[in-house]
């Protein structure tokens, strides 16, 4: 049977893997997470433009690694024993002690920087996987109806942002038609002006279209005041509660109980506010065992890595000092990440989108 998995399941799975990636710089584990994520995306993405955008996230991840390495060479604190690049170092005043401008680049330092970049890059790729597997627009469907103003802004952002790239490309090409080869700041302005104008126009058109189609419609006589009061009280409660929780000198009653009451009030406000917006959902995504499995797999990966970090943090790091060693293979963490592979095998396959619809497109 083919169906699309609930978007929340994919997002929680991806967040689990992103958390796992955040805890390690061990190249073996990072590589494993990347393999798992890529495998699941290739196995379970649909033919939508979001699905096709996955490689952009992969490219972004690679760029992050590169930038991190370049930053290390330029201003990073260098350490290690194996000299790679004998660069001169600039003398900096004492107050800039945290920065080392230039200086000799060692393999250990560069590798450490690359792996830190890889950690962030892997997290980005995990988010990209969630994007490819469940379009953000489907996720917005489960957004609380009471917050429809924020919802409108999110929908507009999520719709218009991908068009930005196309817009920039189009304007860059048009610039050539004017024989314009200016670089630097002037070029930025020449591209930015038409692109921003275009984006603003599109955003307004979309917002107007949503308005005209009844987005954020309210039924007569919604309990507006009660909703506002509940939400306001809830927010105050949550603030006081978090303060109490973090400040060890305040009485215990001000902490967790207050936070719980505050959150409860907020939820009440959202539910009540949501009732005033008579929205229904066409073909509600079901939440069945594949969703539970997906969610659990993501959580297992995060939990395995967390427990490893508690018990043996060194196993999750790349040994760099005093000398480069071979990264260890922490069995629990590896098994945890491998579990996250399951959704790519056991969840239902998404329905194929019609390839017939894909026509030759003129460049815009």
């Amino acid at each position, binding site marked *: 049977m083919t169906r699309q998995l609930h978007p929340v399941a994919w997002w929680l799975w991806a967040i689990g893997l992103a958390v796992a990636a955040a805890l390690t710089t061990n190249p073996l584990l990072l590589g494993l997470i990347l393999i798992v994520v890529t495998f699941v995306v290739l196995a379970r993405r649909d033919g939508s433009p979001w699905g096709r955008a996955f490689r952009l996230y992969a490219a972004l991840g690679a760029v992050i690694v590169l930038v991190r390495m370049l930053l290390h060479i330029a201003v990073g604190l260098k350490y290690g024993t194996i000299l790679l690049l004998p660069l001169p170092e600039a003398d900096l005043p004492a107050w800039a002690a945290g920065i080392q401008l230039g200086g000799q680049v060692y393999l250990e330092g560069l590798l450490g920087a690359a792996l830190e970049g890889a950690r962030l890059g892997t997290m980005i790729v995990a988010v990209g996987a969630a994007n490819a597997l469940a379009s953000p627009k489907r996720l917005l469907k489960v957004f609380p109806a009471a917050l429809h103003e924020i919802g409108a802004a999110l929908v507009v952002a999520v719709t218009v942002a991908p068009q930005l790239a196309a817009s920039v490309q189009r304007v860059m090409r048009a610039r050539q038609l004017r024989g314009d080869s200016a670089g630097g700041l002037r070029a930025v302005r020449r591209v930015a002006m038409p692109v921003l104008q275009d984006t603003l126009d599109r955003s307004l058109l979309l917002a107007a279209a949503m308005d*005209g189609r009844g987005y954020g419609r309210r039924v007569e006589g919604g309990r507006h005041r009660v909703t506002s009061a509940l939400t306001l009280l809830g927010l105050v409660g949550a603030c006081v509660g978090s303060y109490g929780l973090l400040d060890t000198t305040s009485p215990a009653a001000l902490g967790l109980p207050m936070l719980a009451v505050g959150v409860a009030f907020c939820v009440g406000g959202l539910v009540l506010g949501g009732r005033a917006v008579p929205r229904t959902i066409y073909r509600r995504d079901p939440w069945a065992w594949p969703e539970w499995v997906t969610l659990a797999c993501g959580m297992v990966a995060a939990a395995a890595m967390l427990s490893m970090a508690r018990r043996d943090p060194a196993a999750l790091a790349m040994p760099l000092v005093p000398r480069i060693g071979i990264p260890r293979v922490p069995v629990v963490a590896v098994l945890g990440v491998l579990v996250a592979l399951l959704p790519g095998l056991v969840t239902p396959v998404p329905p194929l989108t019609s390839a017939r619809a894909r026509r030759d497109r003129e460049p815009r």
Partner: protein
Amino acid sequence: MTLSNTDIAVAWRHVAVTYADAAEPVIRDVDVTIEEGELVLVCGRTGSGKSTLLGTLNGHVPHFTGGTLRGSVRVFGRDTATHRPRDLADLVGVVGQNPLAGFVTDTVEEELAYGMEQLGLPPATMRKRVEETLDILGIAELRAAPLTDLSGGQQQRVAIGSVLTTHPRLIVLDEPTSALDPTGAEEVLATITRLVHDLGVTVVIAEHRLERVLQYADRVLHVDAGRVTSGAPADVMTYAAVAPPVVELGRWAGWDPLPVSVRDARRGARGLRARLDRVVGAPGAPAGPTGSATEGGVSGGGGRIDLDGRTGREGRTERPGGRTEWPGGRTEWPGGRTDTRGGTPLGFAFRRHAAPPTAATPPTPGIRAEGVRVEHGRVLAVDGVDVGFAAGRVSALMGRNGAGKSSLLWALQGTGTRTRGAVRLADGTDPRSLSPGERRRRVGLVPQSAGDLLYLDTVGAECAQADRESGRPAGTCAAFLGRLARGIPSERHPGDLSEGGRLALVLAVQLTAGPDVVLLDEPTRGLDYPAKAALGATLRDLAAEGHTIVVSTHDVEFVAETAHDVVLMAQGEIVAAGPTGDVVAASPAFAPQVAKVFHPRPLLTLADLRAALGDPS
């Protein structure tokens, strides 16, 4: 009859709309009623207030746009003063010009359901209506397709379907076919008329190309400088500032009532046709309109149309009336050639291939493509095209959305992708081998979204910049602009110009570089009749000065008025090329109205008819 009578679809009462910071109202004294079940066409010049008038129908004006609305607008009894667009969503559905800009979801099915979700309809009802709507619009096989993958016509039908599912009693369409090819436009208009007749929906539609809609309209609202008059189509057309060719024909011939469709005009034109045949001679046994126009060859069509002996004699015999041949509007086309206009007798022209070529050498093409192939990723946009465009002539590039017109133009200019093949200018240079700056001195391109070329705050600054970047004396660009469009204040922001004004500015900027070849990608989109006529005259003037002009367009009437040659593309290939008369009249989808009225006589425009009849004015 009270105002709250809900059988009245729309009642404007003493409506005036003034936008913030504007001294004058955009529309004023609007006192018009639309009854349920009518198909109402809103027409008027660009900037006359059409869009504002449509915007008042669902409260978009003033709730979303700001400004002040005086008077009252009631839609099925609901006052837009107290109802925001979202509160009218169950009554009014709005479809805009660019369907993609209004899509909220990713796939066809979700988009159809979106409006119903917001209205809170039960899921079972939604399922039923989505299925019905998919069938009504004939897009059932596309239900799961991503919206961005659809063709323009399909997208527009989905947009209509997405408002249809909420069962609105009024549908408002603002230029729904402006981005579509003739066939796509037909699809959309057929859908709309079907809704009116089968479901009794009230439809209000604004459209520049009246020839597409006028015949279906029950009532026409004419907007002129903010004032709105209402009446039967034939009555309003007696004074409208914009009129399709059949109406122009009726006005010229003094018919009462005016014709609003080709059918009306054809009936009315019996006398004219007889007179035409007396003056010029009846067309010889004409070949079918599917003649082999492909063999015309634009590059060869540099002026001479070779008539075989018999038809040549027939067509050119001296007659007492003094007409010697079918006039092709020669006087309009300087350059010392005969038959420079493609308007050779259709019936005759189809048999011209039997004749040996004449001694006259065809002019060198200003630009020619040799085996040009363009691929965008895995998509093959242009498939090995060989075509030359003659200098001193206006050539039109026509074809479906996605046929490869834009890709070919960009490849010709040299900036766009070209996977294989060569492009040669008159002296053999390949524009791609030049730097962008030099390239534009040889080949200018006005892209589809012309505004992309503009980035400064005022028209004057853009002109000055154009002079600088082309190394021309100051004032060159401003002079071109003055010639193309009068009265554009130089301190105006380019974003505030009308479509026609912006196009004129971009064309002036491109002409400043002094290119021999000028390519225009869909310049007629959003232009009204007077603006199109002005553009056409400009292009013909430029051609007369020796420029090579290539225009891609969907606008058949514009092509008939302006182009000497037509190249028809489909799926990246050239399927027909030759003089306008041959190519355009050969297909029912591409034939202009006047050609249909006088078929099989080889007339394309009212000007042709008047010239044939020797009408001096």
